[in-house]
């Protein structure tokens, strides 16, 4: 069955520290992969996406993610977090021809001053 797993429900990092949010997927086809961010009281906003090509994808707000087919992973990284990065982060997966994308359960990022 197709699924997306975000193993960490909550992550806490200090401002200025590096960040990695994990995402693993189970999908039969070559996946399309997404990371979305949801700030408090807001809708979801796309950070970045991978469809094909270079497996290291750059996104907005200084985020990047790397697609590793051998590990079925698409982890999100940022070298130095800012207090404004505190939010809920969702990984999602789909494939060409699908009628929807599947969202993970989200990881809540907390930033310590």
């Amino acid at each position: 069955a197709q699924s997306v797993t975000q193993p960490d429900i909550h992550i806490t990092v200090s401002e200025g520290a590096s960040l990695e949010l994990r995402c693993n997927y189970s999908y039969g086809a070559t996946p399309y992969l997404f990371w979305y961010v949801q700030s408090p009281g807001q809708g979801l906003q796309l950070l970045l996406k991978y469809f094909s090509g270079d497996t290291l994808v750059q996104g907005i707000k200084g985020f990047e993610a790397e697609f590793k087919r051998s590990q079925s992973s698409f982890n999100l990284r940022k070298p130095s977090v800012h207090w404004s990065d505190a939010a809920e982060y969702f990984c999602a997966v789909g494939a060409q021809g699908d009628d929807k994308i599947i969202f993970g359960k989200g990881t809540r990022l907390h930033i310590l001053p």
Partner: protein
Amino acid sequence: DTAVSQTPKYLVTQMGNDKSIKCEQNLGHDTMYWYKQDSKKFLKIMFSYNNKELIINETVPNRFSPKSPDKAHLNLHINSLELGDSAVYFCASSQVGADTQYFGPGTRLTVL
């Protein structure tokens, strides 16, 4: 201009009432969705329409009925509201099913 808009932003109502949430997108997308986000932030797809045709209808109570008058609008009508319907409802749109989805700001529904 707002790409995906929803009204109202907040909705507080009594159990048993009927209410509607409206969604409009000006992106020219063919596909629109309704999601329910519960208090644990879990995002669950409810419905999907492609060019006014129902594509996805997940296991949602019959009290929920989507209506798409045209491909730019997807409204959600809820009959006989229950306490468990309290959640944030998001509308989204995309060009095709597995492409980037653009989300509205959400409607927080509180059933008393």
